[in-house]
Structures are given as structure tokens and as C-alpha cells.
């Protein structure tokens, strides 16, 4: 498949359900070869957007381009999609359901005979290959669902809330595979409402709330643009005076350190000036904002 600079381009996409606005005028570019996170609280429009990308529902207006194609149908064989609503044929065996999903993505028998054992092994399901889906535990069914998603070695992986319901071990396993896929030049798009997952994985993010874009772009850049007003310091001697400074909004003791929340208009340097001479400074660190904080801050500003 021809590699394209942008795996996905979403332009001015709108979607209403019975008069309720699910997605409003959303635009984003998703470069290929990266991990891209759709972030936002429940009901923000993440699943609706993903379903529109998959052409499962159609946007009221706007367009979605996949690898330069306006129709996803040609690209479907090279896409792996894990929906939020999960399920597989309960009566089929693990091996046959995976082979079936691969087959309808036009995989050949010879390809399947290698890919099926490989991916079952990767997710630790090899001993369950001949068991029926309904005999698997919930966690295993989750992993099986993931195998079904990646069986065709997709160029573009779209995962809707992939981490929900996973235990920490499987969570790391899944994250590891996602990172490995990026290393191999694949594009991974996933949605989550848990910001901390995105922070560790994403190269790019799209933050949405109530169907509208809050912010998008490279995660590092977004972080850089958001200076935090939290400073973590370690001082020798009495620190009581800090709380009384007019520029300080709040202080919190964290171990040996003190976390200081400054007045929003205040520069960190001003705090440093205030400290010099009054106390010996062992550490002075401007805390970088968490995605959670950025989100709160952005959504708060809009109001």
C-alpha cells in the first residue's frame, strides 16, 4: 500500500443524532507512523468519530480521507479496528474466529497459517486455540478481540477504548504491542478517557469535549505551550513565610518538598526572587502540566 504522509484527515465533520449534536465541525490531521490519541471524557464524541472513520456511520457533513482515499472500503483490508462494543461469535473456536476475521480481510490461507499461531502466541492464547470463545474468561476474550484486530497486520490500527477492563499486566502487554507497531511504521489511533494512558503513549493527541475539538497537535508541543503554575521546591530551614507571599495561591507539603501553586498571572522567576536570600534553595522545579490539567484548564477557559 502506498504510504501517505497523513494516515487520516478529518475535515469539518459534523454528526447529529435525533437533534443532539454528537460531533461538531471537527478537523484533525493524523500523521502516519505515530501513535495518536483521541482524548476526552465519556460522551465527548470519540466513538462517534471513530465510527465515522470506519464508515460504520456517515457524517452529516464534512469529509474523512484515509491514506489519500475518500472511501475507506478500499483500505479496509489494511485496517485493524477494535470497537468499543466488543463481541465475537460465542460458539466458534478461538482459531476459527481469528481465521474467519482474517479471511474476510482477504488474507490467504498460507498467511493465516502463520499469522494465527503467531498472534495467539504473542497474547499468550496459544493453549486456548481450540476452545470455544464462550469458554474464555473476560480478560482472555479481550485479548482475543485484540488478536482479531491485528491478525491482518494492519497499516492503520484503530482502537476504541482499548484499555478498559484490562488488568495491569495485560495493559502493559497491549501498550508494548502498540509501541512495537509504531516502531514498524504502523499508525495507531486509539481513544481513551483516561489521560494518563495517553501521556505515556501518544505522539499526537486530539482533545475533544462535547463533540468539539479542544486542542490537537504533538503532545510535547502542547505541553510546552502550557506552562504550569505549580513549582516544586526544596528549601533549608523555615518555609512558613512562603504561604504568606501575595503571589502564592496554595502550598502543599509532598515529602521533603513543597508544591507551590502560584497566582495565574505570576512568573516562576518572581517566586525565585522572593526566595533568594531568605533561604537556601536545594531544588527548584517547574512542574510540567499533566494532560489532565491541560484539559481542565482548556475546558475551564472556554466556559
Amino acid at each position, binding site marked *: 500500500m502506498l504510504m501517505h504522509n497523513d494516515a487520516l484527515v478529518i475535515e469539518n465533520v459534523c454528526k447529529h443524532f435525533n437533534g443532539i449534536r454528537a460531533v461538531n465541525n471537527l478537523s484533525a490531521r493524523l500523521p502516519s507512523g505515530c501513535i495518536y490519541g483521541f482524548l476526552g471524557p465519556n460522551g465527548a464524541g470519540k466513538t462517534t468519530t471513530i*465510527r465515522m472513520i*470506519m464508515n*460504520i*456511520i*456517515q457524517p452529516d457533513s464534512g469529509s474523512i480521507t484515509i491514506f489519500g482515499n475518500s472511501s475507506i*472500503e478500499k483500505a*479496509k*483490508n489494511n*485496517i*485493524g*479496528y*477494535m*470497537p468499543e*462494543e*466488543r*463481541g*465475537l*461469535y*460465542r*460458539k*466458534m473456536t478461538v482459531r476459527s474466529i481469528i481465521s*474467519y*476475521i482474517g*479471511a*474476510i*480481510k*482477504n488474507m490467504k490461507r498460507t498467511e493465516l497459517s502463520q499469522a494465527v499461531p503467531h498472534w495467539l502466541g504473542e497474547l499468550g492464547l496459544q493453549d486456548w486455540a481450540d476452545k470455544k470463545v464462550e469458554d474464555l474468561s473476560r480478560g482472555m476474550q479481550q485479548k482475543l*478481540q485484540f488478536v*482479531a*484486530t491485528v491478525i491482518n497486520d494492519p497499516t492503520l490500527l484503530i482502537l476504541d477504548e482499548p484499555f478498559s477492563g484490562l488488568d495491569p499486566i495485560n495493559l502493559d502487554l497491549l501498550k508494548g504491542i502498540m509501541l512495537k507497531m509504531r516502531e514498524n511504521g504502523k499508525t495507531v489511533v486509539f481513544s481513551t478517557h483516561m489521560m494518563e494512558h495517553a501521556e505515556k503513549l501518544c505522539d499526537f493527541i486530539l482533545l475533544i469535549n462535547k463533540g468539539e475539538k479542544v486542542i490537537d497537535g504533538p503532545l510535547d508541543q502542547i505541553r510546552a505551550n502550557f506552562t504550569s503554575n505549580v513549582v516544586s521546591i526544596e528549601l533549608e530551614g523555615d518555609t512558613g513565610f512562603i504561604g504568606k507571599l501575595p503571589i502564592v495561591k496554595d502550598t502543599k507539603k509532598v515529602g521533603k518538598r513543597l508544591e507551590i501553586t502560584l497566582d495565574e498571572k505570576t512568573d516562576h522567576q518572581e517566586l525565585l526572587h522572593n526566595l533568594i536570600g531568605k533561604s537556601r534553595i536545594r531544588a527548584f522545579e517547574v512542574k510540567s502540566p499533566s494532560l489532565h490539567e491541560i484539559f481542565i484548564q482548556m475546558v475551564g477557559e472556554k466556559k
Partner: protein
Amino acid sequence: MNKIIKIAHRDFIATVKTKTFLFALLITPILVGGILFLSTRLQKNTFSGPRPDKKVAIICPLVELSDELDVIFKNHNDNHSERKVLNKIYLTDNENTENPAETLKSEVRDGTLDACLIVEGDVLTGNGRVNLYTKNITDFEFFGTVRNLFTEAVFNCRYRQNNLSPELIAKLRRHVPMERIDLNAETGKKKNEIVMLMVPFFFLFLMFFGIVATNQGLLMSVIEEKNSRVIEILLSAVTPFQLMAGKILGQSAVGLTIVGIYGLTAYITAAARGMGYLLNAEIVIYFITYYILGFLLISSIFAAIGAACNTINEAKSLMTPLMMFFILPMVAWFYIAQKPDDIFPVVMSFIPPMTPIVMILRLAVRPDLPVWQIAGSIVLLVVSIPVVMWAASKVFRTGILMYGKQPGLKELLRWVRSN
């Protein structure tokens, strides 16, 4: 196309491998065969097998008739030792004899007697009347026998009164042997009337079962897929139309398997009894044509209904009006088989969901239906299939991802109009 076939293949295997399928496949012939066997067996027993003796009392005011009755009943009992009707005649030819009517009626009531026949007036001249008192009103065979015996006695008396010999009359009214012989049958073979009607009914049943029952399988399979939430994964690989087409194809293969097995079994059974001629190539070709067209037409409707509903119960309410189209020809089958050229069967032949069922029944009865009707009904089906499939695929596409409230007819029409 490749994907459609893969979906069809999976659906076929998944359906055929289930125990329910095997059960349904076996139970229907067993049930139908069992009912046929039992009903003919029971009928035989009712009308010709042994049964306990019956007791009938007759009150008769006419000496001549009562003597004749005695002879007639005796004759009957001599000839039917296992189906006797024991009679006791109370002659009431003069005013002084006591009339036991009330006593006898109460004996019928308590079961000592099976029937009590009371003759009033001169039945020989046609002025009197006869009442038969019984408790069990459904024992037709017994009443028939009593009536026949009694009528025979009256006739014999009348013959004698007119100087005719009952023996001579009986001789003159000998049975005239007449048998219907079908020209299609092997030369000289007699054709059984029941068998003649069984053939159209068999085709009717096969068409009805092949279309309606297998489509219910399709409906359940769609609902199951919807409930197991596997749909979205499938739609990430195939289009909704491919999914629907694949499922229809898979289920039609299931249907053809069932129909093929039934058809072959029936043919082998018929052939083994020397009735293989009942099935000719022409009707088989008609059947396959109408079956495939009918299946394509109706299955897309069933697939759409399945997609729109969340449970079998919800689907039932949408299916009931549709089922009327299939039930009606089944209910009217005897009438259609008797009068295949009446206006109603002709009109029904041109109402698409009914067409295959009505046409195959008519063709089985009358292979020489007007060509315009055969051609017209096939064209009608061919034209309606894409229209119905188009509308159904729209409903399917929208419905397949809708969970929660069941849509009404209005909502379904809105889905059809939407893009």
C-alpha cells in the same frame, strides 16, 4: 464477491453444525410421516377394523318392516363378525302394547344401549318419521351403518309392496367398476386420488418450509450477531451490503440443503413404491426457479427485520403481517388445488411474497398454466427483488447498529429514505 462467499460459507457451516438444525431437519419428516401414518391407520381402524359390538334398540309399529330389519341386521352381523350391530326390536303394532321409548332412552343415556331408533307412523309410504337417539354424536361410522341398514330394510319393503324382488333390484344395482387412470402414469397403473393431491401439497409444503423456515433461521442469525456485538468487527472488514448478501447466500444454501434432502427422500420413497412418475423434470425446474427467486425476495426482508430488532420477540411483531402472505396460500391450498384457474389464485400469483408458493401449487396441479402467467410471475419476482433488496439493505445498514428501542414502521421507512 470473495468476501460475500466467505461470509456465506461461515454462516452455512455455523447453521448446519448446530444440533437444532439436525433436530429440525429430522423432526419435520418424522412428524409429517407420523401424522400421515397414524391418520391413515386410525381411519382404517374406524371404518374397517374390529370394534366392540354395538347395541341398538328399535321401536317399530310396522310388522313388515320389523321382520325385514331383523333379516337385514342378521345378514350384516353374519358378514361382519367383528363389527356387529346387535339389535332388539320392540313391535308396537297395537295400541295395547306398552311403548318402552322412555326406558330405552334412559338406557342410551346410561350407556347400556348405544342407540335407540324410534319409528313413528308409516315410513314405508313416506308419511312417518324416524328418530335416532344417541349419546355419542361423533361416532359417524356406527350411525352410518345403522342408517344404511335401516334404509335398506325400508327399500326392500317398498320393493315388495310394488311386486318387485329385492334380490332382483340388488342384482340390477350392482356396483359399476370405474377407475380414474392418469395418462402420465405408467401404462395400466391405477392412480390413487389421495396421492394425486399429495404431490401438489408436497411441493407447497416444501416451498413454504424452504422459504419461511430457513428465513427464520436467517432472522435469528442476524439478531444473534447483533446481540453478540460482533457486527462492528465484521463491518470493519466488509460493507453492510456484503454482510447481508453473504448471510442471505449462506442461509439459502442451508434452505437448499434441507429442501434437497426432503425432495430426494420423497422421490426415493415414491420411486420405491413405483410412483416416481409423479415427479417430472419440468416441475423440478419450476420449483428451483421459484424457490431461488422467492428466497432472494423474502430473505432480504427477513434480514432487514432482524437488523431492526433486538430480540426474537420484537421481530415477531414485525413478522406477523408478513407471515400472512405465506399463511394465506397454505390455508387456501385445497381451494387453489381444486380451482387453479379461478380469479383468486391468479391474483395471488401476482402478489410478490405469495407468488412462489401459489405458483408452485398451481403448476403442480396444472402443468399447462398459461405461459403469460408463468412468465409474468417470474418477471414480477425478478423486478421486485432489486427494489426490495435495496430498501432492505438500507434498513439493514441503519438497524444493525441500533440498540435499544424497537423502531416502528414509520422509523423503518425513514431509514429507507435516508442515505
